[in-house]
């Protein structure tokens, strides 16, 4: 590590989820010798969120198996955990954070890893409806499980057909719920993928017994003694015992905004994850950052971005700055389907769907802008995901004619344009 004179200094991290915890441990491995104090309003030992909508909900794993690090490791690395502690505001003049309980804590470096929270739409009756949940925290997952356990009819209605909504639908169906998903747009995953993929996932859910209905805009909830009526703007009506809202997230930007940091669709950071105040950094879901691969400012809700920005942040704080330059990747597991995605598909003008020998549940979708490969979505097809990753990183040209032809062996030599 370079000279960082960190002895006696204090790095405060607000938010102890993926980005915050990764950053804390990375600070130690980069050589930060001063204090590290991690705050989070969630009282639970920091845990891994992706299984919340999958293995935790189906009860194949419990939250204790999904802690990010055991408590002993925080102790060994001398990282102070202040859980169940809410930060009210940042006082930049005093370089301190002020806590809801009246305490304050000074910092030399401050990291905002404050993430996002589920959007609660202003639907009539939403505050009166019973058994209505979002899914963001371990507590949320626990509440959904308990509600389902104590419910006889197990009619679950999910509002929003994004990844959280669809994963939750698949998981709850697996454990015996009767699941309906209502999507406001004309297709599921409308905000995050192409129509071809939306269609595949709508079919997949239907085949497995999840009822997906698109173009449904919920306008009110009418609580009944032991269930809720859900009414859409076209007059259709659904009855459900449990309602789950999965319509996207809001960035937790208030702390940054109130501290007059630059905020625009997330907290603005440079390639070293520094905000408009050089002593304050931001990492993970809450940041608006520049992606050098796609040459644009983006905000990502992903584990990859949380981890990678956290490491960039730690090295910057320790005086060894490495610019953020990672290709985004994502995954989703629904039923027995593994979806792996690499790159950002937006801005494509051509799609090539490559099927493997007529296998319905094994294919890949390749997004191009002209000759430039932007992204690949791979369904049960890790080979496609891996090749896509390499081609995008290498800015390789792809032989589209070979790509689309399933009789041609699926290997790099056949797919690179200069090997025609």
């Amino acid at each position: 590590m370079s000279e960082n004179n960190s002895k006696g200094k204090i790095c405060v991290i607000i938010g102890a989820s993926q980005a915050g915890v990764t950053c804390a441990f990375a600070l130690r491995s980069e050589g930060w010798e001063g204090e590290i104090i991690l705050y989070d309003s969630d009282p639970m030992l920091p845990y891994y969120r992706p299984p919340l909508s999958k293995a935790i909900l189906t009860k194949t794993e419990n939250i204790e198996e999904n802690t990010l690090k055991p408590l002993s490791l925080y102790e060994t690395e001398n990282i102070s955990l202040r859980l169940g502690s809410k930060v009210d505001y940042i006082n930049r003049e005093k370089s301190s954070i002020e806590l809801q309980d009246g305490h304050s804590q000074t910092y030399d470096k401050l990291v905002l890893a404050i993430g996002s929270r589920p959007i609660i739409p202003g639907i009539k009756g939403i505050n009166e409806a019973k058994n209505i949940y979002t899914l963001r925290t371990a507590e949320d997952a626990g509440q959904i499980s308990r509600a389902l356990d104590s419910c006889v009819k197990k009619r679950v209605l999910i509002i929003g057909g994004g990844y959280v909504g669809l994963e939750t639908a698949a998981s709850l169906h697996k454990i015996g719920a009767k699941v309906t998903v209502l999507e406001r747009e004309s297709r599921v995953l409308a905000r995050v993928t192409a129509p071809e993929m939306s269609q595949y996932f709508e079919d997949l859910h239907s085949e497995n017994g999840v009822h997906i209905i698109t173009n449904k805009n919920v306008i009110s909830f009418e609580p009944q003694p032991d269930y809720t009526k859900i009414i859409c703007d076209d007059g259709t009506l659904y009855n459900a015992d449990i309602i789950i809202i999965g319509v996207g997230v809001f960035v937790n930007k208030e702390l940054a905004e109130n501290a007059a940091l630059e905020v625009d669709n997330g907290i603005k950071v440079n390639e070293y994850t520094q905000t408009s105040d050089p002593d304050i950094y931001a990492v993970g879901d809450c940041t608006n950052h520049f992606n050098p691969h796609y040459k644009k400012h983006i905000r990502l809700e992903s584990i990859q971005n949380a981890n990678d920005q956290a490491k960039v942040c730690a090295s910057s704080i320790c005086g060894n700055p490495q610019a953020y330059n990672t290709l985004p990747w994502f995954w989703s597991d629904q039923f027995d389907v593994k979806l792996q995605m690499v790159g950002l598909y937006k801005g494509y003008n051509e799609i090539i769907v490559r099927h493997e020998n007529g296998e319905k549940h094994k294919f890949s979708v390749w997004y191009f802008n002209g000759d430039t490969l932007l992204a690949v979505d791979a369904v049960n097809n890790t080979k496609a995901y891996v090749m896509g990753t390499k081609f995008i990183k290498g800015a390789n040209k792809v032989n589209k004619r070979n790509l689309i032809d399933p009789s041609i062996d699926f290997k790099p030599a056949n797919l690179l344009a200069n090997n025609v």
Partner: protein
Amino acid sequence: MAQITFVTKNKEEKVLEGTSGSLMKLATQNGVKGIEGECGGVCSCATCHVHVPEEHQAKTGEASEIENDLLELSDNVQDNSRLCCQLQITEDLDGLVVHVAN
């Protein structure tokens, strides 16, 4: 109960005991350097790469197709590379030694 030894890049040996779950979880829960398990063990990220010495390969068996494909995204891939999220702890693994690849 199986005793498993992780040897990290800087030759640090960590001897751990586990009864169930994956080798990746055992490693991350005990702070083995170089095992990250970013995807949580669903064979999506290639950040839990280990080398299995020849004498232990009978214990671990062979990598699946998905695992082999994904390994291509990691550095230091060798014939004896495995993603340890795909190795489930059973008593059969008792005495296993793996070398962290990165």
